[in-house]
Structures are given as C-alpha cells and as structure tokens.
C-alpha cells in the first residue's frame, strides 16, 4: 500500500504535541518520584506519635486537624454552595440579572489569592467576631474560599441535566421541589461530587489562608482551639530550615492523603452513578 504523502509541517506538529503531552507526564512523574525518594526513607513510626515535640516532629496532630478542618469547611460550604446553585439554575429565571451578578461575583472571588482570604478571615472571624486562632475560624475562611468553586461546578452540573427530565417530571404532576430533589440533583450528583473533590484538594493543600486564622499550634485541636494542618505543618518545617527531612516525610503523607481522597471520591461517584445510570 502506498504511504500517504504528508505535509512536512504535520510531522513537526505531531512531534510537538507528543512532546507536550510527554512533558506533563514527565513533570508529574519527576515530582512524585522525587518526593517519594526523599520522603519515604524519612518516614519513621515516631513521626506518627500522639504528641508533637521540637525533638520529634510528629505529624499526627496535623493529620487529625486536617481531617477536622476539611469536614468543617465542607459542612459549611457545600450546603450553601449547592443551595445557591439550585436557586440560580432552577428558581431564578434563566439569564436573570441576579444570576449574572452572582456569577460575576463568584468568578471574581475564585480569582482572589488565598492569602487575601487569610487576612480577611483573620480580621473578621479571629478579631471582629472574637474566635481567635481556632479551627472554626480557619474552616469559616476556607468555606468562603471554596464556595465559588462548589457553586461553579454545581451550576455546570445542574445545567447539564437535560430539560427533558424536568419536563417529564412536571408532566407527571410533580412540583418544583420534587423535581429538583428526585430528578435534577441526583442526576447532577457526579458533577457536584467532582466539585467537592476539587474543594477537598484545595482545603488539604491550603496554607496561606490558615496561617493567620487557625494558627500553627501542633496539637490535636477542638473547634475553638488553634491547630495546625498538614500543609502548614510542612511549610513550617521547611521554612524553619531545621526539619527538611521531616518536611519531605510530611509531603509524602500529604500526597498519599490527597490521592486517597481522590480515589475514594471517584469510587463513591462511580457507585452512585452506577446505581442510577
């Protein structure tokens, strides 16, 4: 068979896109590999001791605080975010002024650097509202920070639910409320969950917004106590320059934690989707 003659530029372009795709994999592979190589040898059981001391940089309190923080921030932001999106897509008229205003606001909010959220949270929650350095001040700050993300992904997920489903439901005599809860939200759930996963990623990896709100006390904290999270713990270890090995060990744990969350939520989404779809 005769080989198709090709434009010389096409081979070049093919090479370029392959190289671009390869680069991303290489960079990620290098990053993960480097962290594992530097971090895994430093993972000692003592790093998971119940208490943190200057001599033994235990990360257990930080792990527990990270989980508490994630849970609290999600509990605050997810209901509000989903509620706001449901209002925007299902209740407000399409193309209404308010919807456009809210959309512009959320887009602006999602472009604000997290340190600004940190300072805002400190002024509002820690000082003005008198929470002081506390997990709850951090969780409130983070919930504001992830709200635009949850709203945007939820809105997209709701918009992608075909109107045919809504009409089908209304046509059977179901009201708005039943249509939203029995048809629209379940259909949009995988999309909403992917937004929540992204939000978890941002919470777990956040440092700047927490430095001045939840603070850096390395012990297992209650809601009104200051408590360090894993990413901040690692930042502190690295910036003090004394615990670089421990910092790498922490980053391994952080990496594994994020991968686990992604994997678990993917499974949950697939299960829910599989049951219905």
């Amino acid at each position, binding site marked *: 068979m005769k080989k198709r003659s090709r434009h010389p530029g096409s081979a070049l372009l093919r090479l370029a896109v392959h190289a671009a795709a390869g680069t991303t994999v290489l960079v990620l592979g290098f990053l993960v590999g480097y962290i594992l190589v530097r971090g895994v040898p430093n993972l000692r059981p003592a790093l998971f001791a119940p208490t943190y001391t200057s001599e033994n940089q235990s990360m257990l309190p930080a792990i527990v605080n990270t989980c508490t923080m994630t849970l609290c921030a999600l509990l605050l932001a997810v209901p509000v975010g989903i509620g706001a999106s449901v209002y925007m897509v299902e209740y407000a*008229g*399409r193309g209404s002024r308010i919807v456009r205003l809210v959309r512009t606001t959320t887009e602006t909010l999602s472009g604000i650097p997290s340190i600004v959220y940190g300072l805002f949270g400190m002024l509002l929650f820690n000082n003005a509202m008198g929470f002081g350095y506390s997990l709850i001040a951090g969780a409130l700050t983070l919930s504001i920070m992830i709200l635009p993300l949850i709203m945007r992904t939820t809105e997209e997920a709701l918009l992608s639910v*075909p109107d*045919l*489903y*809504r*009409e*089908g*439901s*209304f*046509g*059977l*005599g*179901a*009201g708005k409320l*039943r249509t939203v809860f*029995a*048809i629209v939200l*379940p*259909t949009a759930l995988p999309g909403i969950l992917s937004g929540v996963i992204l939000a978890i990623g941002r919470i777990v990896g956040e440092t700047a917004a927490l430095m001045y709100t939840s603070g850096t006390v390395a012990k297992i904290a209650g809601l009104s106590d200051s408590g360090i999270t894993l990413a901040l713990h690692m930042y502190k270890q690295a910036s003090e320059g004394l615990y670089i090995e421990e910092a790498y060990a922490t980053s391994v744990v952080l990496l594994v934690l994020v991968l686990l969350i992604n994997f678990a939520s993917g499974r949950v989404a697939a299960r829910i989707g599989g049951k*219905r*779809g």
Partner: protein
Amino acid sequence: MTTKFSVQHMDLHYGAFHALKDVNLNIRAHEITAFIGPSGCGKSTLLRSLNRMNDLVEDCRITGDIRLDGEDIYAPGTDVNMLRKRVGMVFQKPNPFPMSVYDNVAYGPRTHGVKKRAALDAIVEKSLRDAAIWDEVKDRLHRSALGLSGGQQQRLCIARALAAQPEVILMDEPTSALDPISTGRIEDLAMELKRDYTIVMVTHNMQQATRVSDSTVFFLLGEIIESGKTEAIFSRPQDKRTEAYITGRFG
C-alpha cells in the same frame, strides 16, 4: 360522546409573537384527536396549553378559556400538579429518567402519595402491561431504563404516564424519533388506550393521522383552519388550504 376539553377564543403570545389566534375547539372523550399542520403552526403549543406546560416558558401569555370537564384550567387557584396528573404527557423524544425501569413507572404514583410496596408493584405491573412492554422488561425492572431501545423507552414513557392514572394523554409527535416497527407498536397501543383514555396526538405524519385518529384538527400559522372527523377531513376537505396540505402540496 362527551366533550373532554373545550377551548374557546383562546389566544397565546410568546413575548411579541402571536402564536395561537382565536382557537375554538372541542376534544371528545375516548377518541384520538390528531393535530396536523406544518412546523411552527402552533399545534404543539396548543397541546402544551392543555396541561399548562407552557407555564414553564417565560413570556408566554394565554387569554381565553380552556375547560377540562367544564372546569377552567387557567382559573386562579387551579392545582397545576393535579391538572398534570389528570392530563399526562408523552414527549417527542423518549425521556425516561436515569433510574431503574421500576422507579420510572413508580415516579408518578409516588409523587401522588402511593407509598406501599405492594400497591406500587401492582401499579407498575399494570401500567407496563397496558403499555405493551411488560414482557420485554419484566426481568430487568431494577436495571436502568437508559439501556432500553428507543421504541421501548417511548413505551416505558407511556407506561410512566399511565401509572399516574390520568384521564387524558397528550402525545407530542410520539413516534418521530422511532423506526417504523416501533412506530406501528405505539400506534396500535394508542388505539388500545383510547377505550380508557382520551388521547390528543400531534403528528407530522398524515398517514399516521388517518391510521389512528378519529378526529383531526388542521393548523396553519397559529390558526385552526379546519377540524372534524378524520375521514371527512381527508376525503372531503372544506378548505382549499387543508386540501393543499393533505395532498402534499406544501408542508
């Protein structure tokens, strides 16, 4: 035979567009009434006014009088959900919900308060049997409805509409997305169902109108040009435009 729907001096506007002009029509019970006419003539719009689906369209204004069994369905205080339970609808494109076959059919009864498992089971089976799809789905009631073929999905949608125990079924070009065999089954089904229900069917297909309908209404540019017994409309049309349309000179 008794009149199910009566429409008097009804006008409908979408914003500035006058979509239906002075519509007067009686739809008789236990008949199949076919709405025919070229695209954009208002036949679907009138159909969707009969169960107030046009309420969902912004900028849609309706004046005049539409009565179901003598009751004004646009009167203030009308329970729209109850109206839509009485006047079920089957759409142009099959639209089963992304859930199991069983849950699709049980959606209507559950909406209207049927909770007992045994009662739901009975309604689901009867509806699926009446829609002539029971034998094809009885072994996969709890699997997703999206795995069915297009024709099966449409019969499932008919079963879903029947399960809400309506009096009238509106069908908006129910076979336009289906192959000829599936189309034939839906037509046979419609003729079975008219014993227990009143059926209004929008169709683009004039053969379909002659095959299944008892009465035919011909629409053009938002007006009803002619209506009457299907046989009479197709054999002795009174209006030149009706004759031109049914003989295929435009449309």
